[in-house]
């Protein structure tokens, strides 16, 4: 029971941060929702081990990044309900982001460019520029060497620069 309570406390205190991380990884609310829930279910199964020996946040961050990159995350999902949730749940604010967000100018341009990147390159940028991890830490999260992280980041930034709509960013992102 104490473990369950600790897990619940962890989820409550970190939920928003995880949703935001998931949203940046996937670029859309529904996949972010799935990603967070799937990662937390894995953490729930490993909670006894993880919270005593490791950093639960690091575990979830790693799980989400790797799940996102894996092939099944990239297949298009369809939004349907084949079963009813056990109980009512509030529509999260995250679901409103896709519908309500309508930014203009540079913000939307950069966001759209990020969406065109391969999952691993996008993950590298999110971990580096949002989570502010070092290349070594990113390598640990993604299960690759720090050299691979640097090359992935370089390719991602290079792609951003090379996209026609990002002409004004040329020479800036590196």
């Amino acid at each position: 029971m104490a473990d369950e309570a600790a897990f619940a406390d962890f989820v409550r205190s970190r939920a928003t941060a995880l949703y935001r991380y998931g949203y940046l990884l996937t670029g859309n609310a529904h996949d972010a929702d799935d990603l967070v829930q799937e990662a937390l279910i894995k953490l729930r199964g490993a909670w006894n081990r993880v919270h005593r020996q490791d950093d639960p946040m690091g575990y979830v961050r790693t799980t989400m990044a790797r799940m996102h990159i894996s092939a099944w995350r990239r297949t298009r999902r369809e939004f349907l309900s084949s079963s009813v949730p056990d109980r009512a749940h509030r529509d999260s604010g995250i679901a409103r982001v896709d519908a309500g967000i309508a930014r203009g100018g540079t913000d939307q341009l950069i966001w759209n460019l990020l969406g065109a990147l391969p999952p691993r390159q996008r993950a590298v940028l999110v971990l580096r520029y949002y989570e502010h991890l070092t290349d070594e830490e990113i390598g640990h999260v993604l299960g690759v060497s720090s050299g691979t992280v640097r090359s992935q980041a370089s390719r991602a930034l290079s792609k951003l620069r090379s996209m026609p709509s990002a002409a004004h960013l040329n020479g800036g992102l590196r």
Partner: protein
Amino acid sequence: MTTPEIELTRVLETYAGDVQAHADLVELVESRFQRLRRRRMRAAAVAAGMVVLLVVAGTAVAWPRAASRPTKPPVVTPSPTLPNPSCSPIYNCKTGPLPTAPAFRAGHWAAPPAKIPLATTTWPTATFQLPAHAPDGFKLKPLRTIDRTHVLVSSISHGIDVSYYSFDLTRGGFRKIGEMPGGKRATSAGSAVSDHYLYWAFSGYNSTDFAKAGFDIYVAPLAGGATRKIIHVAESSYDANRWFATDDAVYWSTRDGAETLPRTGGRVSKVAGLEGYRLVNGSAWAMRSSADFQITTGLKNVVTGETRTPVAPSDDVMDLRCAPTFCVGLWGRDGNPGIAGDYFIQDLDGSHRMAMPKAFTMWGFGIYTIGDRGIVVSGQDLKLEFWDPVTGAAGRMVATWGPDHSTSIAVDNGDIAHAEDGKAGTITYLALGATQ
């Protein structure tokens, strides 16, 4: 970092800043985890059974050969005491097969129609479509039922509630009730509707350390009038994710129970005796469950203090979910449900227990508390079927695929369902609170 890198960082933080978590995330994860664990246990049991079968089969095949060989004097070793092979998680040797309930028959419970009619036919005044935009030009989102002919909607910008309107289900017009203060970084914590007032809460706090956020509570009369800030609550707005209101007071969930505040102002107070209960959006009835959320163990009315204690079958119940007017349960043993047909419906006191109609258990289903009553919702592919076992009212919603293979159908916010016609590009909403 270079300026563009700073720009990239800023864009990431800006887009992330609009995101909020599911209010029920802990419960959702726990529920899915328990289901996954049960499936794995069943799979393990099946796998163990297969191993037994293979061993038995292998023994049977090998036996004639063994019999033809010269035999040595047998070495007698004491055999361990083995359980009766007919025992299983479903069949307990000590207590026999799982119990069953009598077949469903109309009487105390009102049977659903053999063919569930469309919700638009059963509840024409409870089904509606929304215009794409609110009068203020922002997109619309239905929140909950106000009464049988009005539904509360909000206009949203950047994912944040901007204004609240009453939408007339019969005439289709909007009437503004209130608006959210604060800039675009504000996040709303929740809202509740009583007979004559709308309450809502907002938090201007915008950080990943959400648990430290506080929130302001506002009230406005539904008939029109000035918005008034009642109080600032210096507590977590994350925990305040379920709301209920009367004309006299507003209630919201906390980590362990609920708190309340008079509409006229004053002090925030803890609702006595509600420790361990979970408030339900839009209902005075708070619920208490077993540690694994599988058994509803109590209902308590936050206004009157009335308590109802569900009576579960004495043995082998593994799931009992209750609304204020009925419970639906499932027999099982050792974490494994019985075969199909083991779902039952009963009064809270355990009386009038009988099998659920097969049509509502064949696929996934759940029960929702809508105000002072409950409703059963069965889901299959692109169809949702609703049934009130007390009144017998039933209706279905059907979604259709669009050319881009996208569609959606679900129950939102506890009392509003939606189904998307992907071809027409329209969404039909059903206000469950108006289905009586």
